[in-house]
C-alpha cells in the first residue's frame, strides 16, 4: 500500500495525482490489484484483478507485484497550479526489489512431471476408469516444483488446475451419449485444486466410476495446471502469484466384456513442458467432482 503525501503552499491548487507502477501495462501484468476466487457448491470464479485508472489516481494505492525483479521504480505524480495559475507537476519515486522464487537454472522450468498409465482399478461398489491409481505403483501425473527460494519467508506452493475439456461418452442399451463433466476450476470443494503432497510436490489421479447399465464409458480429459507461490506474509496477507503452467491430459475407453470392465484400445496421455510465466489462472466456472452424467 502506497500513500502519496504532499503539502501545497498557500495559493497553489491541487489538480490531480497519479501513480506509475511498472508492470501494470505489461502482458501479462506484473503488478495487480488483487487475486480473488470463490468456490461455491455449484459455481466458481477466479482470477486476477487489474489496477484501474481510478485506483492509479487515488492518493492511496494498494497493489501487488507478482514477478521477481529488482529496481522497480514507482512514481507518484502530483499535478497542481501555482499561485499564478500555471500548471505544474512534481514527482516522487520509490524503488522496490521484489523477492520471490527464481528458476534453479536460467532456463529451467519451475515444474517437471512424470506420467503414469490409464487403468481400470477396483472399487466398491464399482470399478474406476482412472489415470493412475490410489497407489504409488501408478501415479497418473506427478508434479514436482523446484526453485531457488528467497530467505526469510514462510512460502508455500499451491496448485490450481483448470479443466478445459472433460467429455464422457456413455453407451448402454438406450444408445450412446456424450456429456461434459464440466470445465473450469478443478475442485473437490476447496481451493487450491490439489493439496500439497509434500512442500513441493503433488499428484493427480482423476477417476470415473464404471456404472451399470453402461456397457462402454470413454473419457477425454484436458487440463492446465498452474503453480502458484505465496510468500506467507500476513499483514497485509500475501496473495498467490503465478509461476507458470503446463497442459496435460489423457483419454481412455472402458468396455464391459463378459461382466468385467476392460480397456478398449490404447489409452492416451500427454504432458507439455511447463512454461514459466506470470500469467494468472482465470476461470468463470467450476469442474466439481462428485456425481457425473448418467448412462443414456
Amino acid at each position, binding site marked *: 500500500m502506497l500513500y502519496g503525501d504532499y503539502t501545497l503552499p498557500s495559493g497553489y491548487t491541487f489538480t490531480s495525482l497519479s501513480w506509475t507502477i511498472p508492470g501494470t501495462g505489461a502482458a501479462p501484468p506484473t503488478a495487480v490489484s488483487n487475486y480473488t476466487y470463490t468456490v461455491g457448491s455449484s459455481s466458481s470464479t477466479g482470477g486476477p484483478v487489474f489496477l484501474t485508472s481510478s485506483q492509479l489516481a487515488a492518493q492511496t494505492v494498494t497493489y501487488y507485484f507478482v514477478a521477481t525483479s529488482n529496481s522497480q521504480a514507482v512514481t507518484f505524480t502530483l499535478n497542481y497550479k501555482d499561485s499564478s495559475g500555471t500548471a505544474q507537476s512534481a514527482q516522487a519515486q520509490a524503488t522496490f526489489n521484489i523477492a520471490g522464487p527464481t528458476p534453479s537454472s536460467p532456463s529451467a522450468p519451475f515444474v517437471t512431471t512424470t506420467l503414469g498409465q490409464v487403468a481400470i482399478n477396483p472399487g466398491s461398489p464399482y470399478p474406476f476408469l482412472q489415470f493412475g491409481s490410489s*497407489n504409488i505403483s501408478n501415479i497418473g501425473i506427478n508434479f514436482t516444483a523446484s526453485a531457488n527460494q528467497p530467505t526469510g519467508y514462510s512460502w508455500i506452493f499451491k496448485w490450481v488446475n483448470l479443466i478445459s475439456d472433460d467429455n464422457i461418452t456413455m453407451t448402454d442399451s438406450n444408445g450412446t451419449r456424450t456429456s461434459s463433466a464440466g470445465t473450469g476450476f478443478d475442485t473437490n470443494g476447496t481451493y487450491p485444486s490439489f493439496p500439497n503432497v509434500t512442500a513441493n510436490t503433488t499428484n493427480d489421479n482423476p477417476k470415473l466410476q464404471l456404472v451399470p447399465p453402461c456397457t462402454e464409458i470413454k473419457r477425454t480429459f484436458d487440463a492446465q495446471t498452474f503453480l502458484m507461490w505465496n510468500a506467507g506474509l500476513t499483514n497485509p496477507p500475501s496473495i498467490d502469484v503465478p509461476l507458470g503452467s503446463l497442459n496435460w491430459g489423457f483419454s481412455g475407453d472402458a468396455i464391459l466384456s463378459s461382466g468385467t470392465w476392460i480397456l478398449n484400445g490404447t489409452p492416451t496421455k500427454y504432458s507439455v513442458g511447463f512454461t514459466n510465466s506470470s500469467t494468472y489462472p482465470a476461470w468463470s466456472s467450476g469442474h466439481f467432482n462428485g456425481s457425473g452424467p448418467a448412462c443414456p
Partner: protein
Amino acid sequence: MKIFPKRVLTLLTLTALTVGSALSTTTPFTLTLEAEENPVKAGAEIKIGITLRNSSSRAMYMSLGLSELDYTFDVRNDQNGIPAETDLARKSKARPYLSSDQVFYIQPGESLPKSSLVVSKFYDLSRPGKYTIQVSRAVPKELGGGTIKSNTITITVVQ
C-alpha cells in the same frame, strides 16, 4: 480346593494372552470424526471433518479424494433409524462418481489433510433432534484389508 488355583492360573493366562493380543494388534490407521459446528440450526448445512492418521509403525501410501467415495457413512437419528435420503443422494446413485485423487506417503503418526463432507447433502437432517454419524474406510489389501471405523459423533439439530 486344589483345582481352584489352576483355574485361576488358566484364567490369568488367558487374560494375559488376550491383553497381549490386543496390544500387538495395531490398526494401520485411525479415523477421527469431528463436527464443524454443533449444535446446528434446523435447515443449516451439517458438515463434518475426517482425519486419517497413520497409527502403524511404518509409512504408508493413502489416497485423498472425494469423501463420499473414500468413506462409508453410517448416519442415524435418535430412534436409531436411517434418515431419509435427499433428492441429490437418490439422483447420485444412478450416476458415476468422478473424483480427483491425490496419493500421499504418510509417515507413522502423520495424517492426511482433513477431508470434509456436507452430510446434509445426502441425508435429510433438517428435523430437530440428535443424529449420530460414524464413518468407515476400507483398508487397502497391502495393509491387511478389512474396514476401519471412526469414532461416533452426535450432532444436535435445534429449532
